[in-house]
């Protein structure tokens, strides 16, 4: 955690560059990194996807297992989102990452859950008795920043093509899970007073905070999370909101 002169100089350089509207990888401040995606990569999962967002890479596997409903929602399935920040994904993961992992999983979960992409009532098998448990597990393989956005993308893609595994549990034929429209998560870091989209790990390291928003197809906000000891002015938050709405459309368009 000590900061040697080289690191300090390098941080300053990253900041200075962004102050002039440029980034080390030649992106504009509001530009996402190249996105490479692939679905159905894990045969054992009921839905899966692999996402490479710049140097960040992760795999998501979705599994449906018969489960019990919560007593206060007898006609709804249950959903669990987990994430593994594998030590192989970053040298900085060589320590307890529980708080970071929990935050990411919960923020991403809230965005998916509230967007209505999956109607939990569709996961009901027999009200009050048996429902589908939907397990969404994110497995991070390479960490170069912005795990929030990549995770939501991975989940959304793993849900596309998700089928009820009825045959595996002797419940008839498999059939597709009805899906609503996809939400998009967008994260901005604040560096040198600028909001930059889709920050790298290096940019996150020099930032004065992070703000993450999940936007549904109608442009509604479904989840927000400010983090990284962030301090944003009211105007910055509102600007992030505007930028998130327009960026969400771009991402959505590219994945349609």
């Amino acid at each position, binding site marked *: 955690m000590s900061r040697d002169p080289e690191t300090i100089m390098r941080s300053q350089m990253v900041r200075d560059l962004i102050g002039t509207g440029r980034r080390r990888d030649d992106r504009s401040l509001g530009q996402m990194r190249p996105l490479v995606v692939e679905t159905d990569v894990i045969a054992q999962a009921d839905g899966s996807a692999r996402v490479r967002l710049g140097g960040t890479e992760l795999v998501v596997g979705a599994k449906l297992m018969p489960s019990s409903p919560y007593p206060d929602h007898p006609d709804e399935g249950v959903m669990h989102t987990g994430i593994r920040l594998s030590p192989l994904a970053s040298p900085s993961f060589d*320590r307890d990452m529980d708080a970071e992992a929990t935050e990411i999983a*919960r923020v991403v979960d809230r965005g998916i859950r509230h967007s209505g992409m999956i109607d939990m009532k569709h996961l009901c098998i027999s009200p009050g008795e048996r429902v589908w448990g939907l397990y969404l597990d994110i497995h991070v393989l390479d960490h170069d920043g912005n795990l929030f956005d990549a995770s939501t993308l991975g989940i959304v893609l793993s849900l596309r093509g998700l089928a009820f595994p009825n045959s595996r549990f002797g419940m008839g034929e498999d059939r597709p899970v009805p899906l609503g429209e996809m939400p998009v998560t967008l994260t901005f870091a604040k560096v040198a007073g600028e909001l930059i989209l889709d920050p790298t790990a290096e940019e996150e390291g020099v930032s004065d905070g992070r703000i993450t928003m999940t936007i549904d197809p109608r442009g*509604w906000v479904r989840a927000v999370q400010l983090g990284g*000891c*962030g301090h944003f002015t009211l105007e910055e938050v509102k600007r992030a*909101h505007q930028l998130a709405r327009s960026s969400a459309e771009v991402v959505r368009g590219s994945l349609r």
Partner: protein
Amino acid sequence: MATRGAEQGRTDGRSDDEIRPVRLHAGVLNNAHGSAYIEWGKNKIMVGVYGPRRPSRQEPLRSDRALVRCTYNMAPFSVSDRKRPGRDRRSLEISKVLSEALTNAVLVERFPRTVIDVNVEVLEADAGTRCAALTAASVALADAGLQMRGLVSACAVGVVDGRIVLDPSRDEDNFGDGDMPVGILPSSGEIVLLQMDGALGPDQFGEALDLGVEACRRIHVLQRDALFVRYGQERASRIEKPHFSGYGDMDTIIMDDEADPPVWGEEAIR
């Protein structure tokens, strides 16, 4: 300020921009270096601060600043069904966002290689615990005499039946369409806590944010009052200090928007 949406009514009779009654006391514990107790609606929360200090267990420190380490814990009896003691995912996340927000409140650069422990104990929970905890925690930090950039003030905004309401109650939180805790540094106007889940229309987001920020400024007044009671008059001695329930002699601060608060610079505490 105009009372918004009062015509529709809320389950507890508040107007849409009305905060539940808040009582806040500084310096309520003997051992903690700083402490605060807050009752906010039916929420009852105690915060105790220790530090800056060297941790007893070996752990990574920061060479350039203090680590603010907030631990949010709910008593087993604080909610309807007994909560199993111990850390869960929700409390872990809340601990993290509170730690980060409070890092903005303290001049952490002045205490390198130390830890500032902020222990939050939720004795009774009734929606909005993280905002109440954050509000009390920054008062406890001030009570500990730490050099601060400013207090952090927090209040949640909710969406109920499509309307933006302030400080949702438990019913409104459970059956509402959205919840957005907001925490600011009133001294700079910066937002340091912001979470949200549910549904906010494109225009509602800004409206909710404005309302939340405005509410935080109202909460800030209460925080300054609590510190004034504690330090301005010194009428609350260390032994006979105010406590968290209905003792006759207790100094109770009922929220009152009209009151003219004493001028108080929390940056200069101690």
